[in-house]
């Protein structure tokens, strides 16, 4: 499987990372090298093997649906680049 410029652009768009042409070409070269390394995993037969998502085969623990945290909206919003009246502000999305 070889990766091309369009694949890098598509991945960058999905990841919402802006790249100019120079950066895209640089990342393409790096990704080609990395994928060559990664393809070594095809050397081993994994037919009938289940994927391992947690090294201890643990399953996600759940808890009672109870409120445990106090409301700290002001403290949290003080970290934001832009808020107003309790809302987070972003550039206008509706014309």
């Amino acid at each position: 499987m070889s990766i091309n410029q369009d694949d890098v652009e598509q991945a960058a768009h999905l990841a919402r990372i802006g790249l100019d042409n120079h950066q895209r070409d640089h990342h393409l070269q790096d990704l080609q090298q990395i994928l060559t390394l990664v393809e070594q995993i095809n050397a081993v037969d994994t037919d009938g093997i289940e994927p391992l998502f947690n090294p201890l085969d643990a399953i996600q623990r759940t808890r009672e649906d109870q409120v445990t945290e106090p409301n700290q909206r002001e403290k949290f919003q003080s970290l934001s680049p832009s808020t107003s009246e309790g809302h987070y502000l972003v550039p206008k999305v509706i014309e």
Partner: protein
Amino acid sequence: MTELSITDLIAGLRRQQFSAVELVTRYLDRIETVDPKLGSFITVTRTEALEAAAEADRKLQLDDSAPLLGLPIAHKDIFCTDGTRTSCGSRMLDNFIAPYNATVVDKLSAAGAISLGKLNMDEFAMGSSNETSFYGAVANPWGLNRVAGGSSGGSAAAVAAGLVPAATGTDTGGSIRQPAAFCGVTGIKPTYGRVSRFGMIAFSSSLDQGGVFARSAEDAALILQSMCGFDEKDSTSLDEPAPDLTSNLQRPIKGLKIGIIREHFDQGLDQQVGAAVQTALAELEKLGAVLIDVELPTSRLAVPAYYVIASAEASSNLARYDGVRYGYRAEDPVDLEDMYKRSRSEGFGAEVKRRILTGTYVLSAGYYDAYYLKAQKVRRLIRDEFVEVFEQVDLLAGPTTPTTAFTAGAHSDDPVAMYLSDIYTTAVNLAGLPALSVPAPQASGLPVGLQLIGKFLREDQLLAAAHQLQQASDWHQLRPALN
């Protein structure tokens, strides 16, 4: 004072041979003098540390029983600290002051430890040389033109240079053990789930694990003892009682079966490093350990499997940095998409973007099965191979890294060469096992690490073996000439 072991520092504080304020001041002064050469700290919290020391002195007068009362430490800048910047080594979080503490920070503080500040690291813990930090590289105390290793390079360098007796770190693919080896200190990564990940900024959630750096296994055991334990705030925390790490240190290792991993002595290993590790193994044998050759053939695929899984999880975890709720936001965005794309492009460094792109690609439609699922299947084979070998042996051993610390910039243009410096460490994270690195004899004046890998939950056995080795040798007592 800064040469004493943690046991002696705690005893000195209890006997009032020196006060916590005196001790903290001594370390802060040393940071001020020495750290400009190293760059191991991102933030030094002098005022807060001195206040905490004064409080510790009051409690010492009252015979408070907190086990680490008055002991200076420092945290890798990946652990959230309420009121002090937590940057994760990134421009993205250069302005981020966490609104809460990581569980590790709370636990060590409750045990009486005093934080002197936040330590440098590779950006978002992605790197093996500490050169990807937004705040600059960390120099190796044993050779200032060499890297300290990564990603917890600041933690390793600070402990090696005697700027702090112990430091926290995290290990996703070797990020505690590799810098510990490069800087000549002891570093342990416990079993996955032992140390809470709550408030520890996520890189690869199924691999990340917190741990500790210190100058000896005994010191590391004392700190780790206070860091472990179930935490309901971390959904992957192990619901197991915290282990007793300190009482078992004196246990003799006579008859302990240690598997020597044949693949870790292959042609990729530097000869001098190999010879140093053999000397350390011979010392363990002298102490009564039985060395047995073992093979872990699938672990050769650990680095490629690791880079699929870690990058995939990173691309998902780092989606949260969108410039909306906290962190960096680009100037004057024309629309929402432009805001996301430029904030992330300007806020993240090259290595982080490389991993996000790799992760996004391997998770995308058409490639998911071939890369991501395949890597998770290989991961099971690697884990099962360890489990099988551990039916014959108690511990596994080999070199921590294939070389000593390389020179700064040596692998900057070659990501794959950089990734391969973790060739002996990543399999352990895929399998979730505990492992540590302790100093072996040096090679050409540079530290070498012996890696010991333990069975699930057997940090006690690992630390006991390392402690017995350190009782019989003095490689861990070598100190770099920095003054």
